[in-house]
């Protein structure tokens, strides 16, 4: 069975370690906040200027002055801090943020990522994604393995305008956990329960390396 978005988020949450400062992008990455292991201390950064992002407010307690980078109403936590946008990207550029989790439209086998533009169709902009991928030391991409048309999003080379080059090292999809190898190619590390290596190979347009025995993803 392929994983749901929530299960992808749960699997990614297992990569978060005690003491991490983490930036979560929009979409599946946002869900990761719900599954951070208990008993560890993690601080979420929102690049509009907040460290220590808390849960959504209780109904009736929304504060229009307190939002995350997805423009959602949120809360602060004890120990939160607020700062301007230049300082926010200062801490990103200077690698004070330990882990960045973001979505993608395409990832190539050499670690390039495209997630901000479809020429002639969608021109929303890159937001903070280009800054994050250019500077983060540890980036995990959370995405569907294939697009709505059934085409692989793990490619030999990206076809869409790039967000960053040679920056992605790990990808988690509904089918698999994969590393991007330094010499190029996707290395299959884990597969969703009941999903065969062959199915993953079919859904992966880029070079895929898999050992004979690939363990299943464990989320609980």
């Amino acid at each position, binding site marked *: 069975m392929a994983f749901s978005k929530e299960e992808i988020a749960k699997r990614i949450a297992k990569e978060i370690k005690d003491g991490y400062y983490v930036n979560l992008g929009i979409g599946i990455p946002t869900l990761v906040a719900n599954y951070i292991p208990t008993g560890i201390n993690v601080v979420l950064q*929102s*690049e*509009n*200027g*907040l460290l220590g992002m808390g*849960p*959504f*407010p*209780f*109904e*009736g*307690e*929304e*504060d*229009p*002055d*307190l*939002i*995350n*980078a*997805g*423009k*959602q*109403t*949120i809360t*602060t936590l004890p120990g939160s801090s*607020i*700062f*301007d*946008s*230049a300082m*926010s*990207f200062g801490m*990103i*550029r200077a690698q004070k943020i330990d882990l960045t989790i973001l979505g993608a439209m395409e990832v190539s086998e050499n670690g*390039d990522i495209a997630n*901000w*533009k479809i020429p*002639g169709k969608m*021109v*929303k*902009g*890159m*937001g*903070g*994604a*280009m*800054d994050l991928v*250019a*500077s983060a030391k540890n980036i995990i991409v959370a995405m569907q393995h294939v697009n709505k048309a059934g085409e692989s999003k793990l490619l030999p080379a990206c076809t869409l*305008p*790039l*967000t*960053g*080059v*040679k920056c992605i090292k790990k990808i988690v999809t509904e089918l698999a956990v994969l590393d991007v190898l330094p010499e190029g190619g996707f290395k299959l590390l884990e597969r969703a329960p009941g999903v065969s290596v062959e199915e993953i190979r079919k859904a992966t347009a880029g070079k895929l390396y898999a050992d004979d025995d690939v363990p299943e993803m464990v989320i609980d």
Partner: protein
Amino acid sequence: MINKVVKNADVAIADIKDGQTLMLGGFGLCGIPENCINALVSKGVKELTCISNNAGVDDFGIGLMLKTRQVKKMISSYVGENAEFERQLLSGELEVELIPQGTLATRCMAAGYGMPAIFTPAGVGTEVAEGKEVRNFNGKEYLLEYAFDADFAIVKAWKGDASGNLIFRSTSRNFNPIMAMAGKITIAEVEELVEVGELDPDQIHTPGVFVHRIFQGEHYEKRIEQRTVRPKS
């Protein structure tokens, strides 16, 4: 005390002319200068270049100035919430420069700190890098990005005093303090204009030296773009 107080938004923006470049603070609809945007729409000044992280929504924020076709060019990092923007962009009526959010912030910062340019790794190897100088420092490539040159910066703060000192509230701070530093003329609208001496000098985010005009705004709508809540259980 140097008194920077003006009567209202109309007076504050009275000398903004067609074709000028404006910085507008805010992130999404959070911390935007609502009063000045409304005044700009009333004044009808046009052919503007607007530097702002986002472009508002169809019927609020900078979206109001797009609807009236007052904006010639937008410089932003993300414009996904505005259908009219996307329509004008795809049809070629509006010029747009999409740049990485950190680059946008840092180009404001550079202007405010009196530096002509900065180097950033954001956008290296992408179309953002086209035509830009690339420099290698310690084995990593960086793009040369220039400080913005804006005629006016228009910001929104929570509290301010007559000498222009500003305090921002929560995440409505965002681009406001760095834009406040970056304008040739900076206009600040505040929710509460207090007497000089009321603000604790230790708590001031933007020193008054950067602010040329200040007024207390009215009728703040503070629209929420994505109302997300959890149930009380």
